[in-house]
């Protein structure tokens, strides 16, 4: 009896390890955003995005540190952190969600050009909204390339833009996420 329990527990433990091996991750994913107005274009990049995709169930998460965004002009970076994103109070932006029909698409080995839909919660500036983000996964040897392009409205996330710079900052900001994800080994 006791032996049986031990075996059962061991099997459970092994099962969890096996599950973990089906997760893919990155620590140096790329996020950039672009704000385009007739007056001024503003862009920033971040190469420190972390992300995990669970290939068993399509669960998908990513997160970036706001302070890691780099701008062309140093003062823009300072104002982005201090005045708009308030990165001391809200250091991270993140997405937690699930990719629709991920297992089916995985089983057909991610046919090229198939755009999946990731349903979940996007948190920016301490405000969480339900969103659907597009996601494309492309196999590349043992790794996978992951990308997602979507737009974010600052007003949806309580990011206050004063009247004096209202014409310099776009109402909708284009965000591009791209990464190479590799197997997560425990």
């Amino acid at each position, binding site marked *: 009896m006791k032996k049986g329990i031990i075996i059962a527990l061991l099997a459970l433990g092994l099962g969890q390890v096996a599950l*973990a091996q089906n997760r893919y991750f990155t*620590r140096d994913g790329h996020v950039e955003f672009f704000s385009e107005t007739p007056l001024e274009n503003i862009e920033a990049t971040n190469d420190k995005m972390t992300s995990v995709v669970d290939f068993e169930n399509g*669960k998908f998460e990513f997160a970036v540190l706001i*302070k890691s965004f780099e701008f062309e002009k*140093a003062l823009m970076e300072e104002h982005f952190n*201090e005045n708009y994103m308030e990165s001391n109070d809200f250091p991270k932006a993140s997405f937690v969600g699930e990719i629709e029909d991920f297992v089916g698409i995985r089983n057909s080995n991610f046919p090229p050009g198939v755009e999946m839909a990731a349903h979940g919660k996007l948190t920016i500036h301490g405000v969480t909204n339900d969103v659907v983000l597009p996601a494309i996964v492309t196999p590349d040897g043992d790794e996978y390339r992951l990308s997602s392009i979507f737009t974010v409205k600052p007003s949806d996330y309580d990011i206050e833009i004063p009247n*004096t710079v209202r014409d310099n900052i776009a109402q909708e900001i284009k965000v591009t996420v791209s990464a190479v994800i590799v197997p*997560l080994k425990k």
Partner: protein
Amino acid sequence: MARFLFLCSLLVAFSSLRAQEGSMLDLLPEDEPTAEYATAGFKTTRIINGHSFELNSHGVMDFKISHRFGRLNTGPYDFFGLDAASIRLGLDYGVTPWLNVGVGRSSFLKTYDGFVKVKFFKQQKGKRNIPITALWVSDMAIVSQKNTNTSIDPYLFSHRLNYTHQLIVGRKFNEAISLQFMPTLVHRNFVITSAEANEVIVLGVGGRVKLTKRIALNIEYYYVLPDQLAPGFKNSLSVGFDIETGGHVFQLHFTNSTGMVENAFMTQTTGDWLKGDVHFGFNVSRVFSVYRPKH
């Protein structure tokens, strides 16, 4: 036995529950800590008259227009000092992330000045823990006003030179409050009476309180150690607001000094706050990215 089984099942249930609630990102191995620098302790590189512990970023040129009007206590005839003005035009440049240089020209004694400002400690946490920011500022001021005192003969070029060396030690305590301490040595090549010291030691203290995201209250005081200046010279005290509007910072303030170069406001301030010898003034700072460094 049954109890043991029950305990096991509880344990398993609990652990799987935890696995579901936690973020998958928590499963990633710990990353090396990165340096997290304290930024924007002051809105600009000056508190009011003197240097703050901030530098212009690499490749950034800062054009500064500074005005001090006449004394408030001159009354309505001089429109509370607004009829008179002392002005300094200056250019500061971020040569590297840790080095700024600047030049300026003041109407006060028709002075030309130049400075070098070096940051050698940067407040940070994470990878390394440094609780303070520290800088060194050296400047030279050349008084170009014609000498009208016939008793000084010959009046040489070296008579016109003044030097200031300053250590700035500061800390951004939180989002709102930054403080700095500035022990300073002013060397004047030429003083009129022997009662005045050529080398003047000054202890400065300055700070800010951020009131809103874009407005801060600044205070700055320079205490001259006793028996160094001729009677009638006062310690410089200034109080003002920073208003930031994107590329500009407007600084509006009240001060008892008219000079805007170190040796002038530290050792040649004659206004007395208690008698109303206070000047309204402003600095306008406009930054330009003239060189874009590669990250």
